């Protein structure tokens, strides 16, 4: 763990080599299963289950990708997933940020209670509340609409959002609001104009985590959403199957297809995750 140092260490050649070896190893381990699944998506059906397994595809084919992209349900599901995840992320960020700010920076009682209350939903196993939630949504007429999934995802993502942002806002120097208020800003204006930009790394981190969480959510989407109009990819992918057999090639192709955009999303936003305070934006 000699590489553990936030400011460039002058440990010398060996250090650097170890560092890069560690990094390469880590990247390989992270990506290897995805590569294997990619291989599953480009092999012929009979090779999928070759025993012993083959490492390189013998007759690569794009048939599985043809299957999934030719499938209307899958295309609609991609749109549905994007909508559900996007709206969930926006709502979470919006409500979560203002709640986190209040907890982190404003004075009021009951803070611990509120924080714990917000956390409460994370204590409950999702499988246990499917039936009552279904009843609730049915009563409100929200079954089989995006909102059933969005609300549920939001409720489960809010705790993490709030807690991350509370930790983040607390790190910001105290004088920021005072400086702003000296300039005549209200609490909310100070929040919007000064705090939010500085908390960008926290916001983007939370946004990515929330988006991915909603994107991958299966249990609730499976129960509350009934057909191609609203079902996200997590529900549609396992249905590349019949009651007898499963089309693993197509499922692998779909898995690759839905992972790539997420990775690209992260690539685009990864700079935002790390820009910020280390630039020394706020000096006492």
């Amino acid at each position: 763990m000699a590489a553990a140092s936030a400011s460039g260490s002058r440990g010398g050649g060996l250090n650097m080599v170890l560092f890069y070896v560690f990094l390469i190893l880590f990247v390989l381990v992270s990506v290897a299963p995805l590569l294997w699944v990619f291989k599953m998506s480009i092999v012929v059906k009979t090779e999928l289950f070759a025993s012993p397994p083959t490492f390189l595809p013998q007759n690569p084919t794009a048939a599985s990708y043809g299957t999934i992209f030719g499938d209307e349900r899958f295309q609609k599901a991609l749109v549905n997933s994007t909508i559900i995840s996007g709206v969930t992320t926006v709502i979470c960020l919006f409500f979560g940020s203002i709640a986190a700010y209040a907890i982190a920076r404003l004075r009021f009682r009951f803070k611990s209670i509120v924080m714990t209350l917000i956390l409460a939903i994370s204590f409950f196993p999702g499988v246990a509340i499917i039936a009552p939630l279904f009843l609730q949504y049915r009563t409100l007429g929200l079954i089989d609409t995006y909102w059933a999934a969005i609300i549920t995802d939001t409720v489960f993502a809010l705790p993490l959002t709030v807690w991350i942002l509370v930790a983040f806002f607390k790190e910001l120097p105290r004088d920021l609001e005072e400086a702003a208020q000296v300039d005549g800003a209200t609490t909310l204006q100070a929040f919007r104009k000064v705090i939010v930009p500085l908390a960008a790394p926290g916001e983007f981190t939370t946004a990515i985590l929330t988006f991915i969480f909603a994107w991958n959510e299966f249990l609730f989407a499976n129960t509350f959403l009934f057909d191609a109009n609203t079902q996200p990819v997590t529900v549609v992918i396992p249905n590349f199957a019949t009651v007898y057999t499963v089309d693993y090639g197509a499922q692998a192709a779909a898995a690759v297809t839905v992972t790539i955009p997420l990775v690209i999303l992260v690539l685009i936003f990864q700079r935002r995750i790390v820009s910020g305070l280390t630039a020394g934006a706020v000096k006492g």
Partner: protein
Amino acid sequence: MAKSRGGRGAPLGRRISRRRFIQIAGAGIAGAALLEVTGCGGGGGGGGGGGEFTFSFGPDPSGSLQELVKRFNGQFEGEYTATYREMPSDTGQYFNQLQTEFQSGQSNIDLIGGDVIWPAQLAAPGYIADLSDRFPEEDQQAFLPGPIESNTYDGTIYGVPWFTDAGLLYYRTDLLEEAGLDPNTPPETWEDLKAQATEVAEATGAQNGFVFQGSNYEGCVVNGVEYIGSHRGSILDPNDSSVVTVDSPEAIAGLTTMASMVADGASPQAVANFTETESQEAFLQGNAVFIRIWPFLYGLLEDPEASTIRPEQVGVAPLPAGEGGESVAGLGGWNFMLNAASQNLDAAYEFVKFATAPEQQKFRALEGGFLPTLQELYEDQEVLDAVPVIKLAGAETLQSTVPRPISPYYSDMSLRLAEQFNGVVKGETPPEKAAATLQEQLTQIIEQGS
């Protein structure tokens, strides 16, 4: 800190409130608008009057189901319209979804394409409709007896058989020949099967002798039922389903045979985590001599993309019998059931009549290899040609099936049965102990239930 309070306190407070209010209101309006747009899709009752109804079933990539629906809608245009709602491909999840919707008191499904093990479970709480009026005894005679029995609970008929399944033995005729055995006389007893499997695998170098489904899941229960039934045992008394008969010498003999498959080396240890997928792939890749599986395998055999071996290399036979027993086949298949709370029962039943008529069942047999449930079709030459399995296995096999226990609490029973059977296959649970445990557990389930 104190600077943020006092002083500008009051006016700040009021200004903030108004702004917050506008923000909240704006969000609310936007939310409501979004709700309108994304709409209340398919929620609420399906159709209601006007002969529209919703039919639920798992995915069917072959397209024969969509074709069926289209034909129906075409034939009854203006009168009835069927909408096909695709359910999860996993039968357990499909069942869970149905239960969740029925429990909530309202489902938009009018007609259910259901698994053969569901009727009793859905009939007991009153979720599906009694079909005695619509589907009288005379009509029932035209169908195979096994599926009809599985649709009957407490003496009343609750479903109409759609297509059926039976466990079969497939084997590699070419490997048998290579080992010097006669490919036209497949083993007729389990002992024979074990001997042949080991012998042929050794002689030809095949990876596995005999594969079946022994993982801790529903498929294992069917396998177990077959072993027990082939030794003339039973799990529940066939005449009185509240009596548990699994702790009997016959059943124990069956379970002993099941355990001996791995113990005597005819099957690989891994069958204890095989489901249909793993076992079928072992066979299709040419790595197994014998396999016990459903008829759908034959369709895969005929597809060069799915199988490395050809149909000419494969023979189909009824499952072996136990010592002094008989050959039985586990019953599978799918049936039509009606949602008791539906407003469109007449329309839905029209679809049932349509789909179970000889013409449509024949179409599904020819197009998708689905086994018909009408007895007359088993003498139709075209059907016999299109579904070679029937001819090869013998039409009588497909007509002499044994169902899994028929009980409103089958889900609980299935959990226990699968667990014990899996233990038997693994060699962890001795057959006598498994039978005794099951006797106790199943009796308790029946008592608790009533």
